[in-house]
């Protein structure tokens, strides 16, 4: 994928069109914001008309939704799930707990800024965001894909050392497979 806008070939444009109109999200709720995912995908605020469906495993999914706070125990498992997804992958952070700690700013067990540990493409504001806000977030992600700017996965590969250092500072018992793709 090429980053600057001047040299986007036709193949990239077609690929991006297909990627942005069929986002598969991992149907897993990490925090208390997961309660906003079912209303978004059912009949009233339909998210399937944008091509968004829920898939069951990280191997089949494109988008990882981090909905709400992340305890350090969950962070280890989320990192494993993120590394099992295939390129190109995107991460959306819901709620104010991913932005600056939110309601749990003085808790000993949650992480405060999410993009120190996992590259995040889009943040959605709110505690919890309403389904209309969630769909607006997805459309924002679609616009970023169209312009070619949604490359959190490549940032992760390039700055792997920095991310790993941050992760190890918080997760003390590190027994994880190496990231080799």
């Amino acid at each position: 994928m090429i980053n600057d806008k001047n040299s986007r070939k036709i193949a990239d444009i077609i690929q991006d069109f297909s990627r942005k109109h069929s986002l598969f999200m991992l149907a897993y709720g990490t925090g208390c914001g997961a309660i906003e995912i079912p209303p978004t995908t059912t009949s009233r605020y339909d998210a399937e008309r944008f091509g968004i469906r829920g898939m069951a495993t990280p191997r089949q999914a494109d988008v990882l939704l981090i909905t709400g706070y992340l305890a350090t125990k969950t962070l280890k498992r989320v990192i494993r799930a993120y590394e099992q997804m295939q390129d190109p992958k995107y991460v959306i952070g819901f709620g104010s707990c991913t932005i600056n700690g939110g309601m749990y700013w003085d808790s000993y067990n949650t992480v405060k800024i999410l993009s120190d540990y996992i590259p995040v493409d889009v943040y959605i504001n709110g505690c919890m965001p309403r389904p209309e806000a969630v769909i607006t977030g997805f459309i924002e992600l679609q616009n970023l894909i169209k312009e070619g700017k949604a490359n959190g996965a490549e940032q992760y590969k390039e700055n792997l050392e920095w991310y790993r250092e941050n992760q190890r500072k918080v997760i003390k018992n590190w027994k994880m497979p190496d990231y080799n793709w």
Partner: protein
Amino acid sequence: MTDKILEKEQQLVQLLEQTFKNCTGKVVRERRVSVSVEKELIPSVLSYAKSQLGYIHLSHMSCVDWIEKNKFEIIYILWSPADKVQLFVKTMVNRENAEIDNIDMIWKQANTYEREIREMYGIQFNGLVGAQEFILEDWEDMPPMRRDFDTIEFVDDNFTFRKGREDAGNVREEIIKRSGEEIPDFAKKYSRD
């Protein structure tokens, strides 16, 4: 008239005070009775309440940290569906080398509550069988619910906040300023300054 309604509760207090020594009881309100005993008598009081008095349900076990008196207080909350009265059984435990017998054999759900208290407060239960880690993973510091564990210091050591948002300020002070009241002393310790 109120005496007639609180008859069950007062009978309960008298019965418990007569049966066990050094036991002081109090009727808090209708349907709630609170009893304090020593920690060695806890298993006998609880099994007596369960088998003879009909308090067959352990709703919860909880713990309070009295740092001024240098003691922990463990509270057992029992419920009797026949009389519909809630019974609080309270004990005091020393803060250094805290230990007490476990009551796993009387109610099975006490296993979970005791493991949580052991992890969060550091009280040892004699004979408790269960994995050491319960909710927190790889935790090496002091048990975090004790009052001398400084959460703000811990967060400042291990996590960072986003730059450029220091002007978000202290919400509590803002509210106080707009409503014109004073912050009490015990709440001042938890401000963001």
